[in-house]
């Protein structure tokens, strides 16, 4: 059956496979990948331990010994797992972008003390700081993937007028910092070196170590930011 997006499969070692849909950031493609992630997970291929979705790829991590044990006539355990994955992909019917996804509202303080790059971004966009904040809070963002740091969600699409290429040199970023790079926005759950333009900070923890799963959101969820005052930030 014709799949909506062509793909290729590569090894990610002898215990993982990467299903690749091309080198692009595209909302429709990612929505498909997120749904496919669900389908492959539900597909319960015996040796598979974990499935991870990214912008335009899906990684499947599996147990080598189990795959070899189950391979039957397949030339290798990996070939066995690959065939099972291809079977799922080729028979998968996506339900379009309107599938049920959680919307999470995240408070952000855009005050200068928490927004070292807001003034610079406003200047280079030819907007006032208020307009930048307005455009940042207006959009509902889609989480394309989580990676780089635990709980770091890559979200998009950011309004064209406030999109800015990432900084050439990374700087130290405080935990909770909310940033923009290109047409993506994201939150640093931990202090880290970072190249994104920091326009605010959230007092809400993205990681919750005593919860299962230990993160406020997951890939495919939707996020909207809302502005809070420095007082509300302190009292959170």
């Amino acid at each position, binding site marked *: 059956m014709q799949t909506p997006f062509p793909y290729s499969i590569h090894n990610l070692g002898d215990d993982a496979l990467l299903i690749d849909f091309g080198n692009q950031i595209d909302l429709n493609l990612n929505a498909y990948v997120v749904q496919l992630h669900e389908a492959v997970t539900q597909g319960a291929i015996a040796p598979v331990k974990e499935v991870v979705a990214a912008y335009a790829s899906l990684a499947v991590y599996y147990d080598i010994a189990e795959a070899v044990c189950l391979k039957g006539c397949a030339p290798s355990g990996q070939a066995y797992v690959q065939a099972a994955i291809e079977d799922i992909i080729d028979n998968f019917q996506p339900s379009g972008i309107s599938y049920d996804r959680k919307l999470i509202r995240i408070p952000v303080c855009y005050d200068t003390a928490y927004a070292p790059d807001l003034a610079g971004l406003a200047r280079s966009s030819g907007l006032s700081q208020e307009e930048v904040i307005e455009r940042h809070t207006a959009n509902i963002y889609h989480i394309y993937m989580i990676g780089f740091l635990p709980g770091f969600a890559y979200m998009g699409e950011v309004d064209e007028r406030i999109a800015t290429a990432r900084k050439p040199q990374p700087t130290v970023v405080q935990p909770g910092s909310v940033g923009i790079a290109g047409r993506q926005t994201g939150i640093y759950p931990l202090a880290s070196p970072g190249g994104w333009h920091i326009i605010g900070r959230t007092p809400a923890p993205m990681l919750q170590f005593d919860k299962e799963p230990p*993160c406020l959101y997951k890939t495919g969820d939707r996020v909207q930011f809302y502005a809070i005052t420095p007082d509300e930030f302190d009292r959170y």
Partner: protein
Amino acid sequence: MSLTVIKPGILDTIQDAGRYGYRGWGINPGGVMDREAFQIANSLLGNRASAAVLEMHYPAPKLRCNDGLVIAITGADFVPQVNGTSVPLFRPIVLAAGDMLSFSRPRNGRLSYMAIKGGIGAVDWMGSRSTHIKLGQGGYHGRALRKGDELFSGLCLAEKVPDNKLLDRLLPWYAAPDQFSPEEPILVLPGKEWGLLGPAAQDIFLGSSFIVQQYSDRMGFTLEGEALHISDNYSLVSAPVQYGTVQLLPKGQMVVLMADHQTTGGYPRIAQVIAAHRGLLAQRPAGASVRFRMTDIVTAERLWTERQAYLRQLQAGCLIKWTEIQHKN
């Protein structure tokens, strides 16, 4: 039943096989860098395969035993000593109250593993006792060991240690794994971007020797050597990676992702170290040389399953020995 850290090593952390199921949130499995050494250590003591161990770099810690314990040391040879007398690796060692365990020099390798009979008591976070240092979760309160820390065994040891002679200290069985092979080439599979390396660069990758850089760590090993270049000016969207992914950095240097790697990356993936050789690579210390050799999936799977079969036999054999010993007393 415990050991106290008299002097911490440079990086001692509690690890086990790692935590699976959380890569989707950017939390990578972590766990031991050298899985074989970990499995052998637990097998020697009749521990469950999932028991947590102590992973040590050199300089390694000095530990005092507070009461009767049995330990086993595997992985790199840091010349372990009990009260100043050398003890062998790959063999169960009985310690009595007051015994001091120390490591005098790095004869080979990068990582030494110490298991305690009964496993090491530690904080379980998301299904594993591995230490997630960045998040400060799991293992010994999410951090490396410090002076004064106490490692508890999960088991109560009834046997009395007869006397202080070295021979009585060693239980009568041991593992004889392959000798440390510092020259053995590391087997890899071609990465997704392997084809983007021209034949000249591919020849360099497979034909030359690279050196493990000083600041290589549990997140990744940086390799120094002849630069490799990719034909196009390549910019990749972030994608998931794996322990053993060989990334090509913009200036032509390579980084091999190790146990604590970030879950995703955007650099070209030119090769993937096979599972059976990740521990072999992990044991290369700073300054050691690394050569790569391309292999195929069938060979990779055979090497893994053969090693696992040997390790299962070892585990079964040691369990029988423990049963015999416990019945004798």
